[in-house]
């Protein structure tokens, strides 16, 4: 069955696949997770704030992002961001935005919606007595969040946040719709150039599978360790 397959194509394209492709994928995953966590935490704080309007706005944002398919958001952003940029800066032409910037902004905004729900659950899991004790010591709301509530929420939610990041790692492959050479995009380019579709897509699947599996295993180990500490 494997007679007419040439797996040497993988060996020949390894540097391109991993240095360029996987490098891009990991960078996009890392930066999106970081940005998503920062914005997600801000959205979570807005949702939990006592200002109704702020909570409503944050809630709408989360619902909106979560009810759109990711591919659609990627597309939309890629074509819309130049025009939004033009509108914001008042330039005469649409602003040129690179595919990387565009996809990074998309993923941060998209992931922020998901991370915000995780952080919201994390913040709500902290007993009311903790912020009360912080307040009683004279800490301001911001200090209480920064030093008491968020570190605990983050630690409690770390396994869930990392699991979401693994999903994000897989989702970044959707940038192929913008013809960006992420790992899948790079594999796909080689596949089409050399006519080795089966080999390359098998290999790409294997790589995603192995990385995700190992990462999930790591998360489970971490979860067990956190459970003991608590």
């Amino acid at each position, binding site marked *: 069955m494997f007679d007419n397959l040439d797996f040497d194509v993988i060996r020949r394209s390894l540097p391109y696949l991993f240095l360029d492709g996987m490098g891009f994928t990991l960078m996009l995953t890392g930066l999106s997770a970081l940005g998503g966590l920062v914005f997600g935490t801000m959205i979570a704080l807005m949702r939990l704030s006592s200002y109704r309007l702020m909570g409503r706005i944050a809630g709408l944002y989360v619902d909106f992002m979560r009810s759109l398919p990711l591919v659609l958001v990627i597309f939309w952003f890629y074509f819309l961001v130049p025009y939004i940029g033009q509108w914001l800066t008042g330039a005469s032409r649409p602003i040129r935005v690179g595919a990387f910037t565009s996809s990074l902004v998309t993923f941060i905004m998209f992931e922020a919606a998901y991370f915000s729900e995780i952080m919201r659950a994390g913040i709500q899991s902290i*007993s009311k*007595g*903790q912020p*009360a*004790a*912080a*307040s*009683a*010591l*004279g*800490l*301001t709301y911001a*200090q209480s969040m920064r*030093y*008491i509530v968020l*570190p*605990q929420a983050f*630690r409690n939610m770390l396994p869930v946040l990392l699991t979401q990041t693994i999903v994000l790692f897989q989702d970044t492959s959707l940038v192929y719709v913008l013809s960006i050479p992420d790992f899948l995009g790079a594999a796909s380019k080689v596949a089409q150039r050399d006519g080795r579709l089966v080999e390359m897509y098998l290999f790409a699947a294997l790589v995603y599978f192995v990385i995700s599996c190992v990462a999930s295993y790591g998360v489970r180990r971490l979860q067990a360790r956190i459970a003991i*500490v*608590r």
Partner: protein
Amino acid sequence: MIEISHVNKWYGPTFQVLKDCTTSVAKGEVVVVCGPSGSGKSTLIKCVNALEPFQEGQIILDGIKVNDPKTDLPKLRARVGMVFQHFELFPHLRIIENLCLAQEKVLGRSHGEAMAKGEKLLERVGLTVQANKYPAELSGGQQQRVAIARALAMDPIAMLFDEPTSALDPEMISEVLDVMVDLAHEGMTMMVVTHEMGFASKVANRVIFMDKGEIVEDALKTDFFGSPRSERAQQFLSKILSH
């Protein structure tokens, strides 16, 4: 030091938890607040440092009106220590870090100063060896002593205790009460919600008895234990002293 006058508080539109509460705690005085559960005593003490809002009346703390929207609450709270029923140590911080955090972030003390103060207070409550442990590694009694030390680290002008021994196993109650008795003897102004009548009879100046959100009795210790005027206080005392 603490002036509570005509405080009314409602949860929702109909349920009134505090009814026209008026009392005061003078400098150096130890006042014990007791009463059946649900009588509003914890709520009252939490109103003193504005952890709980109230709708009517006023509380004046060291000359500053607590329920004035212009009051800088964090600054005011930093000057009053509070000890909670469930300790509320910060579980992600070591014991010594629990003692240093607010000193550094609120009072602006240097790390060295805060550490020195923290170590001194840990020694005082007999927990020097536990300094680098996490709260979960300590017993309930030890945690509550740390919580008292954490509050004292801010050099408070008064201390509020909200049922400090209610969540403790019986054999750990005395180690916490000992620390509180010492504090009282040093002249600390204290408002203590507790059922520990032994503590009350030992160090309290006055005892306040609350029931259904009202201050039913506010009497000198000797009068209270000698002959409480109200029937409800008599019943309460006979119930908790009979066993």
